[in-house]
């Protein structure tokens, strides 16, 4: 998909033009040849990354992620979001499957953390997607299975395959329906996982229960 945003080189050219300094002054400040800058401005030559960085320093420019989601590499339309969710689910399925190589390690908890974080990111990235709420619920169920030492269960092949299969299904689904959240809950429970993650809060003091 072609981005409508101006390229980095175009933005740099624009900033040079707007600075009000001559190319000689700018070149001197940045330690660059003014002729080279001139050719760059005319679109006849490129700047190395190092030269561009020096120029940015002089012009007080730095890279900022665009709030516009499409420009920031984030999905924008519903079909974008669905494609993004499918890609995330596919990557997660592979990541869960790949836990096999670390399954016997003592520090397995640290190995599973990448999957846990990826699930987090998927939930956050889909925040603005009105039709991906069911997918978010599903990602949450899986994420919660890592809580409270639940990651230990991922040492077993059965659990890794089972969860990877759920994620692969999510990667191949055009639209997630509410029923899939329920069936996913059941599948995770059947694997011996706890998808709830947080215990029911207790009373503030025991008196509330004991004394009615």
């Amino acid at each position, binding site marked *: 998909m072609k981005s409508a945003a101006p390229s980095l080189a175009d933005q740099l050219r624009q900033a040079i033009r707007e600075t009000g300094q001559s190319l000689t002054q700018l070149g001197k400040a940045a330690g660059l040849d003014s002729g080279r800058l001139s050719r760059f401005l005319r679109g006849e030559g490129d700047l190395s990354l190092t030269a561009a960085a020096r120029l940015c320093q002089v012009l007080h420019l730095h890279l900022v992620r665009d709030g516009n989601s499409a420009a920031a590499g984030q999905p924008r339309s519903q079909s974008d979001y669905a494609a993004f969710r499918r890609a995330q689910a596919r990557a997660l399925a592979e990541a869960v499957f790949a836990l096999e190589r670390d399954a016997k390690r003592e520090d397995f908890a640290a190995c599973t953390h990448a999957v846990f974080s990826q699930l987090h990111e998927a939930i956050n990235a889909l925040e603005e997607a009105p039709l991906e*709420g069911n997918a978010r619920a599903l990602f949450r169920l899986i994420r919660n299975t890592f809580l409270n030492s639940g990651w230990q269960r991922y040492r077993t092949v059965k659990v890794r395959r089972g969860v990877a299969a759920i994620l692969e299904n999510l990667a191949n689904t055009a639209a997630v329906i509410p029923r899939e959240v329920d069936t996913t809950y059941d599948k995770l429970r059947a694997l011996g996982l706890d*998808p*709830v993650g947080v*215990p029911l809060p*207790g009373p503030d*003091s*025991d008196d509330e229960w004991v004394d*009615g």
Partner: protein
Amino acid sequence: MTRAFLVETSAVRPALGDSTARHCAHFQEQVGAGTLRTSVYIRMEFLRRWFCDAVHLALVIDQQRDVAEALYLLEQEFRPRRLKGALAVLGKYLRDMGQFRNTRLAAEEVGHLALFWLRRFDEVFPTRIRNLCRCRIGSMTPEVNHNRLLDDLRAFRDAFLTPVTDCEVNAFLGFAAAEGRAAALLADERVAALPVGKKLRALHEANTWITCRECVTIGDAVIALEQPASCGLVHLDNAFNELCRARGRPHRQIQSVVAVEGTLPEADSP
């Protein structure tokens, strides 16, 4: 023969495995290989206490600028004994999940949690005793499309909390009858002296028409009156020692988490 146990609301947490490890083990020791049951009425109490409170939290969080502000507001709004524990647990959870800055996602997290809790309740208690009191709201289950989660949860909460004004619990308690269930229970002096006994007596003497609003104040009595002889009641609440004795029903009082642990565990502290 495997014994059956009706798990009263106060004993639901260890039954679900949601108390400390030692407290849950204590619960398991008490019930052994027995089968766990619930009632529509106890499920109603679960929905009211945990599900609707969590949905309330979610809706408040969704309307605030930040999560901390929402939790502060809720702390001011509620009686301390009611929700402080829940606020502490959910606040910690949202922090751990990195959802303390984003109210929309935080509200959704809490809403999902409410659903997941209910799901687990129904999983642990697949069998219910007969709904003798004919509670109409305890069997309600939210139909949720997660794409419009908060709207669906709000609609469910509104429907659930709308008092039923023509409930058959009135016939069940039999306030109008001299030998109705309520009168028979209140004939026991020790039951009548309990806080729930006093509330039941006041309603009985005034021949009050019971809606959900009044019913929640006499929940222990309704649970005791519904308990079948074939089920032992597992409870934490002292009141059931008298209620079950008066009804001639088997029961087991489990220890509180404080009695088992010596102190209220940190996760439960505000």
